């Protein structure tokens, strides 16, 4: 099934992409996240993507671009968990119900925070605020514990990598601090979801995601994150990130 996806013009689009696919493709039985992207679209040296048409939103540059970028990711997470809590998979445990309810609460709060923060930052230029996005999860089965937990894991790990990579793009220390306040909560989520998937293990902070030699988590540029998110087809509203690395 063909879907509109986010169009991202990426200067360094192949860098680290393989690594990301490696991390995100693990343990995702059935969900098919982030693996649907054809390599043909990303060959280095290929002519650039056509310029975006009139009326397609661009996230913008600088701190505004980063805020809109975070807002897009928080919209996706909030929408996903809204669907999860509106129809929990069968026989969900009390602990899992609590975790997903909390994650829903936190991500909706984050989404509304970014909407308010960006709206305040742009003043009368309201056309600079990323619109409300639309979503389509295709064949993702919200009745499947494995698929819901597996997708949540990828979304949370992706959120952590996105905020970690975006920190250096922020100029205003107040925004940097807020990003820091949110990313550690995303990391707490990722840990909990990973622990629910494989409780008696080191997966909460597993060797598949934390570099064994340095003990560092993942950090990725917006172009890499958006390429991967775009490849899921989850976000059906087009936008561009032509002014972010």
């Amino acid at each position, binding site marked *: 099934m063909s879907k509109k996806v986010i169009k991202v013009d990426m200067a360094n689009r192949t860098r680290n992409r393989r690594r990301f696919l490696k991390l995100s493709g693990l343990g995702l039985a059935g969900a098919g996240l982030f693996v649907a992207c054809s390599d043909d679209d990303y060959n280095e040296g290929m002519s650039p993507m056509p310029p975006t048409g009139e009326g397609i939103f661009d996230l913008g540059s600088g701190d505004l671009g980063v805020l809109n970028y975070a807002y897009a990711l928080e919209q996706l997470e909030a929408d996903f968990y809204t669907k999860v809590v509106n129809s929990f998979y069968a026989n969900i445990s009390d602990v899992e119900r*609590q*975790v997903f*309810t*909390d994650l*829903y*609460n*936190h991500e*909706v*709060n*984050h989404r*509304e*925070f970014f*909407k*308010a*923060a960006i709206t*305040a930052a742009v003043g009368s230029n309201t056309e600079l605020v990323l619109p409300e996005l639309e979503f389509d999860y295709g064949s993702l089965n919200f009745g499947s514990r494995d698929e819901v937990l597996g997708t949540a894991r990828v979304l949370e790990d992706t959120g*952590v990598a996105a*905020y*970690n*990579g975006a*920190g*250096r793009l*922020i*100029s205003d*220390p*107040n*925004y*940097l*601090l*807020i990003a*820091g*306040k*949110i*990313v*550690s*909560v*995303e*990391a*707490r*989520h*990722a*840990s*909990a979801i990973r*622990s629910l998937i494989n*409780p*008696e293990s*080191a997966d*909460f*902070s*597993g060797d598949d995601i*934390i*570099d*064994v*030699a*340095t*003990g*560092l*988590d*993942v*950090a990725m540029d917006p172009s890499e994150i958006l390429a991967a998110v775009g490849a899921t087809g989850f976000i059906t509203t087009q936008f561009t990130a032509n002014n972010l690395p």
Partner: protein
Amino acid sequence: MNIIKFLDEFTTDNLIDGKTSRRDVFSKFGALSKKAAIAAVPFGLASVPKKALAQSMSADPVGALQLALTLEYLEDEFYDLALQSGVLPSGRPEIVYMQISKHEQAHVDFLRAGLEGAGVTPVEKPTFDFTVGGMFDPFNDNGVGQETAYAQLLALAQAFEDTGVRAYKGQAGNLLGSDFLTPALQIHSVEARHASEIRRLRGLKGWITNNDRGMGMPEATQAVYDGEENIVQGGVDVTTLGSDGPFTMEASSEAYDEPLSGDDATAIASLFIVN
């Protein structure tokens, strides 16, 4: 550089607001002798600085990294001793502590290499006392018994991880524009993953509600959680952004972790530092 000298000089907040907050707070404990006070005062109120105002190293990337290294030394030694103590049950607790220990060791090595690469001598590893003058017995060295020792091992791990998350967050601004910002963020999120797992191992949520230290946490650890109840983000009270579950006080505080100042993080760490 000597750790105590470094910690003495770690006085960002004093430089910023011109106050000697820790000394003021400490003085409220009156005539307690220093030794008695160390055992009695909560995390974060230990009297560390001899100098109220000193040339600060903290408001720059090097100071931020030296503080980070100090906290990583503390965590690294704590998990090493925990794994050697025989107190940890096999299975999930031991697996979790081994994984965290591996990361803290890597963080120590990474930060030391980063500082040396920048031409800076890393702070020396302090001598730690995880009993805090006999208040705790997390390794069962003094015969408190496995059950109590294990409870203390978990409680201290939670306090250290939640402190680590807050401390790194508090230093992010000092790393703005530095090549060390991204790696520091990459450590910060690992500490948060650790914190979540330790909390869940203790039967708590992985995230912090209001300023609750959580069931079974000693009152002495409250300083680790004070301030976490904040709901004003970027000048906006986030409880006002909507209704229902996501905008309750509880959810609004859980959704954002709060920073610790360098002073507060230093004070907490110093409680476990002998010299």
